[in-house]
């Protein structure tokens, strides 16, 4: 394998490793000054050097792998206790990191790197690695530990085991089994429980699985406490804690020799894992605290490395950009596509008038070229706009906790699917409605702790925030395990507020009643909240979500909680659309909402309860005639037409059109302030032939339909 086929995977992974090395070294420097570098830190450093050596040798970067080899030897010595971690040795390690950065940057440009420039550093590494080794007697003889265990320990694990014995800690075996589907979670919980109490030396998957679908582990732990104390700490009776016995006679001898093999300043209570537990705090403080000394190290190494004339720069680069800049770019792409259309028009005219020769051909070719590049530009900008929901969800968790505290509820916010990606703009606009939903779940859903306990629930309520990609959509769900929607109370309130007529009320289905919650004027409280700055009502949520071409769906079980699903398109900036014609008018229907298209024989249309419906695979779907809605009049409905079946959330409908013209990506343009609120119209867009057409707002149409069926006209009056 030669450097010629330098893979981007290699470069980015190598850079990641070097970044990790740098971070760990900075932390180690602080820790070394404070006393002792925890074993985890040194082991991480070793693993990084080891991985870097492995991949660089495989990918043929010998200069990098030689240096990594030298670094690995020093770190191996450190983790096995043969080399002392001190400012001098750390300086050399920092020098390696700087040199790696130079070499990786060079590799990105195809340069193999000059071995001679690494030579002084490698010599220094060898010097450090030769550092006096501490005489080691074999402490393993002091304990009853089986050969089957010893045989699977790596050298490092064996060293940690010896270290624990030497420090006079007790050794324990935690024997437990987990379900195969989530054993890593179980192990992580155990790790967390043991943190600060003992050091996990190794985890052995045991072949003696009790039953299929489960897996057993023997976890070897060194700790100062006894087995029964450890069992209490773990607090899980499925975990069996056994102790590994010391061999009595030699143990006495161990006690005498132990202090001499330790650094004099340390008390035996300073257990390695206890230091490990306290390290995250110092981690965070480390970069700021050691900035000065790091700069010093960098300066020193630059002196030796600058000969290659390369700057120390990061290979994997990230830029943070204001979303408005991307919006401007996207708008520009929209404008450019109009220019493109104009070019094509001119090209067509030239072809017609001058024939397909000379300049006409050139213009045609270039406008084709332009079109392709423009499409690439569009796709590129789109890609940049996509962001994971993780940040938003994190914010929601914080807000949720705060709201819970203020309202006197015990709430835990569980998050899943946070890596799902959405257009940045949608994510931004989702913050407000999502906050309303979470506030609502805590305020109206989760009961006060004593009430929960009285109903046999745990005092802590759970609000689950989840996201899932479904084709061109993302479904964001907010569910709680609270009291659920009280159907009777809701209905009574709606009647009292005049949103539903008393006659209609008894006929309403559960679903329709949930729909009432989203009506304007239903909200029971009109108050300005700190979080939203507006009155909190679900109608606001629905309006905001609708603006994003999304829909809100609610289901609930009384006493068991409420589940709200928000279905959103992945992006709004540029969307695929179906172009249709009805009574000689052309419209675009966003494909986001289109499920299928059907050819319909006018004779197949039936009327149920004064509504036109068609059968689609056994189910009935209500028809929406654009002729009626847009009052197009003129020609009569043809005998053969098409139905565009659309759905948002759980609602379905079929839009009747005369003809399916084709499919096209569109950028929706606003109709301007005056026409912004035209119902059923999302905006306008340009077709290739310089024709401006209206874009149908399916979400609004479907919602309108749902409302009509829900409250049979009464809602129309309430609006």
């Amino acid at each position, binding site marked *: 394998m030669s450097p010629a086929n330098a893979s981007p995977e290699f470069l980015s992974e190598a850079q990641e490793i070097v970044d990790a090395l740098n971070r760990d070294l900075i932390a180690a420097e602080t820790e070394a000054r404070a006393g002792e570098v925890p074993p985890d830190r040194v082991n991480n450093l070793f693993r990084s050097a080891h991985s870097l050596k492995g991949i660089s040798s*495989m990918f043929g970067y010998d200069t990098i*792998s030689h240096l990594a080899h030298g670094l690995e030897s020093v770190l191996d010595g450190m983790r096995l206790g043969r080399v002392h971690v001190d400012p001098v040795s750390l300086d050399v390690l920092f020098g390696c990191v700087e040199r790696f950065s130079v070499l990786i940057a060079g590799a990105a440009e195809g340069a193999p790197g000059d071995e001679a420039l690494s030579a002084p550093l490698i010599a220094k590494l060898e010097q450090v690695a030769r550092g006096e080794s501490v005489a080691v007697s074999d402490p393993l003889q002091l304990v009853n530990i089986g050969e089957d265990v010893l045989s699977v320990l790596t050298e490092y694990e064996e060293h940690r085991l010896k270290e624990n014995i030497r420090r006079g800690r007790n050794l324990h075996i935690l024997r437990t089994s987990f379900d195969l589907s989530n054993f890593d979670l179980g192990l992580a919980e155990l790790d967390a429980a043991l943190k600060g109490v003992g050091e996990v030396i*190794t985890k052995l998957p045991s072949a003696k699985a009790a039953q299929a679908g489960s897996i057993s582990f023997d976890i070897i732990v060194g700790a100062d406490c006894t087995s029964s104390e450890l069992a209490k700490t773990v607090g899980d009776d499925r975990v069996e804690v056994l102790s590994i016995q010391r061999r009595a006679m030699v143990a006495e001898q161990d006690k005498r020799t132990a202090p001499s093999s330790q650094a004099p300043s340390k008390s035996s209570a300073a257990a390695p894992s206890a230091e490990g537990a306290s390290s995250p705090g110092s981690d965070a403080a480390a970069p700021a605290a050691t900035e000065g000394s790091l700069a010093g190290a960098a300066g020193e190494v630059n002196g030796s490395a600058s000969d290659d004339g390369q700057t120390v720069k990061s290979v994997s680069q990230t830029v943070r950009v204001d979303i408005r800049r991307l919006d401007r770019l996207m708008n520009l792409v929209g404008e450019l596509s109009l220019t493109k259309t104009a070019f094509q028009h001119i090209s067509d005219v030239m072809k017609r008038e001058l024939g397909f020769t000379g300049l006409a051909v050139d213009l045609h070719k270039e406008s084709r070229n332009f079109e392709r590049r423009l499409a690439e530009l569009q796709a590129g900008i789109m890609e940049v706009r996509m962001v994971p929901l993780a940040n938003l969800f994190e914010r929601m968790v914080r807000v949720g906790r705060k709201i819970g505290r203020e309202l006197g509820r015990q709430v835990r916010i569980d998050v899943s699917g946070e890596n799902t990606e959405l257009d940045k703009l949608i994510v931004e606009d989702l913050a407000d409605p999502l906050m309303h939903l979470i506030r609502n779940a805590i305020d109206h859903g989760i009961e006060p702790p004593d009430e929960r306990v009285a109903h046999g629930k745990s005092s802590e309520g759970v609000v689950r925030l989840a996201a899932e990609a479904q084709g061109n959509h993302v479904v964001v769900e907010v569910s709680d395990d609270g009291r659920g929607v009280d159907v009777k109370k809701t209905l009574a309130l709606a009647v009292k507020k005049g949103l539903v007529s008393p006659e209609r009320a008894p006929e309403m289905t559960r679903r329709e009643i949930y729909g009432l919650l989203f009506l304007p004027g239903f909200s029971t409280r009109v108050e300005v909240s700190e979080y939203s700055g507006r009155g909190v009502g679900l109608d606001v949520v629905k309006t905001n979500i609708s603006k994003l071409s999304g829909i809100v769906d609610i289901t609930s079980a009384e006493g068991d909680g409420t589940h709200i699903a928000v279905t959103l398109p992945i992006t709004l900036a540029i969307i695929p659309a179906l172009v249709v014609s009805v009574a000689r008018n052309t419209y675009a229907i966003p494909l986001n909402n289109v499920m299928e298209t059907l050819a319909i024989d006018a004779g197949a249309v039936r009327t149920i309860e004064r509504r036109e419906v068609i059968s689609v695979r056994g189910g009935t779907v209500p028809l929406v005639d654009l002729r009626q809605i847009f009052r197009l009049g003129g020609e009569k409905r043809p005998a053969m037409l098409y139905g565009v079946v659309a759905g948002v959330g759980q609602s379905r409908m079929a839009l009747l059109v005369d003809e399916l013209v084709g499919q096209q990506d569109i950028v929706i343009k606003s109709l301007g302030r005056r026409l912004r609120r035209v119902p059923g119209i999302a905006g306008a867009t340009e077709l290739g032939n310089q024709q401006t057409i209206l874009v149908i707002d399916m979400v609004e149409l479907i919602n309108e339909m749902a409302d009509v069926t829900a409250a049979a006209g009464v809602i129309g009056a309430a609006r």
Partner: protein
Amino acid sequence: MYKILVVEDSSAMRGLIGSIVDRVEDCEVTEVSSGFEALRLLPRESFALIITDINMPDINGLELLSFVRKNPSYLTTPVLIVSTESSERDRAKGMALGANAYLTKPFTPEELQAAVKKLLAITA
């Protein structure tokens, strides 16, 4: 078709091993990034060969190997260890635990392919 499991925490290395082994006739590679993932996958799929690294963050390759060798279902599945030469002692341990072969990084694609073919011939 031989199904081959590659257990390696470095994604660049995993991809490289995967692409080399993929070119061996009749081989289909499944890549996992940790010993835990391997433990989860083993009962669900049967593999003709396991290729594993030694130094990994959750359980090490020796522990995985020992698990495989003690379990009647995978007892005969050949295991190829790939690791760096610095872990000479680990190599000896691996062979003692019942690994069928050991490759030291860096190795050439041909070396890896030859080792894979040889181990598959044992099973066949």
